[in-house]
């Protein structure tokens, strides 16, 4: 009982929750605006992790700097995927209708390519490096600096994005595309520009998440898939395309997972995550936090 009420457990829950929220944020942005099911999203987390690892081991760049590099690399991949593949598919109404289903296959291919390219470059063995891993104690809670940094950066990116969506005209136009694509075009939103920027930003968010993960965990070329799954669970629990609810759902999943494991055992991790997912699908398929406002 004491452990359940400890700040220690809460801190652990917030760290994983913020990371889930960040990973899911990118997926949700891309799904919401482009209706693409990016099952390579976790592999972008992996690309971000390897970018940070490479920068650290080759150039001694700390993650606080390589995080920008990782974001740029992933944004560049977003640009390439959009310009090379989806721009034309989305512009043609007949193809666009099928793009959601087809995107699953296309991204599966991208996932396989990314994993193999990294495996060939860095080998398949797991990698890691040490950064800010000394334990500090703060208000009775012991934590490593890298976990605190994870919590701060992931939360800042998530809440910064939400503020941006709420208070800028570009943010509004992005929400307009999510709510009603054709109406957004009618009012004069530059659809192509919004789509390109969103896919780059969504991919970059995964790159940032990967950098954070690389500070605390061993990384492999095949580490991405669990992140893809978690991200889909989070955005379905929150409501597809509902960005704010997705962030909230990410933190909730972190809490459910951490406290659930504390009450049971680590072996129950998957059961907790899938259990939450199935429960939401059965009880509120439109998402726990989605407001039912439709005209």
């Amino acid at each position, binding site marked *: 009982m004491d452990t359940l009420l400890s700040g220690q457990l809460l801190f652990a829950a917030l760290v994983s929750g913020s990371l889930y929220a960040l990973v899911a944020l990118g997926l949700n942005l891309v799904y919401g605006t482009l209706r693409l099911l990016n099952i390579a999203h976790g592999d972008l987390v992996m690309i971000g992790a390897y970018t940070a690892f490479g920068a650290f081991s080759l150039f001694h760049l700390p993650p606080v700097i390589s995080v920008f590099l990782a974001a740029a690399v992933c944004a560049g991949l977003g640009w390439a995927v959009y310009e090379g593949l989806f721009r034309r598919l989305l512009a043609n109404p007949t193809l666009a209708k099928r793009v959601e289903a087809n995107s699953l296959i296309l991204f599966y291919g991208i996932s396989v390519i990314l994993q193999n390219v990294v495996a060939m470059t860095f080998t398949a063995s797991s990698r890691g490096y040490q950064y800010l891993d000394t334990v500090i104690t703060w208000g009775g809670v012991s934590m490593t600096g890298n976990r605190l940094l994870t919590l701060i950066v992931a939360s800042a990116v998530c809440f910064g994005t939400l503020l941006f969506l709420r208070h800028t005209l570009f943010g509004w136009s992005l929400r*307009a595309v999510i*709510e009603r694509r*054709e109406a*957004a*075009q*009618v*009012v*004069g939103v530059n659809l192509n520009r919004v789509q390109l920027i969103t896919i780059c930003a969504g991919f970059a968010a995964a790159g940032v998440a990967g950098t954070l993960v690389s500070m605390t965990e061993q990384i492999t070329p095949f580490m991405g898939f669990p992140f893809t799954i978690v991200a889909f669970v989070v955005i379905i629990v929150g409501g597809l395309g509902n960005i704010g609810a997705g962030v909230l759902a990410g933190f909730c999943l972190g809490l459910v997972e951490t406290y659930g494991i504390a009450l049971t055992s680590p072996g129950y991790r998957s059961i907790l995550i899938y259990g939450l997912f199935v429960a939401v699908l059965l009880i509120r398929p439109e998402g726990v936090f989605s407001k039912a406002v439709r005209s």
Partner: protein
Amino acid sequence: MTDTMLHVAGLNAGYGAVQVLHDIAFDVARGGVTTLIGANGAGKTTIMKVLAGLLAPMSGTVTFDGADLLRLASHDRVNGGVSLIPEGRMVFPGMSVEQNLRLGAIAPAARAGHDEALQDVFRRFPKLKERRAQLAGLLSGGEQQMLALGRGLMARPRLILMDEPTLGLAPVMVKQVFATIAELRAAGFTILLAEQNATVALELADRAYLLENGRIVQAGTGPELLGSDDVRRAYLGM
């Protein structure tokens, strides 16, 4: 001499392999109301979609103030002064009335005069001012139509395309929408109006075109079409 603002010629369009519009040609004169009337499925919305850049035509020309409109992307058409008030209103339900309106001014050309335009819309539709903080999805159908009109005006258009603005509205709201259209014409806007409500639309129209199965079958002034036997038989039930 009437001064032509929009000129459409030889327009063919459809969805996939199905052709819906056949050799459509009409003109919209500056500073008046031009109306397209026709039954369900005649092709009114399809014409509007082509004009707004939501649907690429198979062939044909559309010039707006002498420039080729078809080469422009939809957002460039809005920026150039062509604004669609779409069928079914298409407001952004999860955003407030004011956000909907401000999004209407997202085109670079409209952004500068943004606050002024908002005050102008609020003056025209006081109801929207009262409800400015409310979610658009919670407005009544008539209020949503006002919002769609206001949002279109925020773009500071020179040509307003209105696709069945009275669809599904109660008679008192229909009256109000037509009164608004008359006001907008008096204020110097040029309007292309697609309507099934043929009597009122024709009374208001400076020029009218009758659309049947994707073809223009009659053209004339509003009163001319009102007096035409075909129109009376087919659309006015007389």
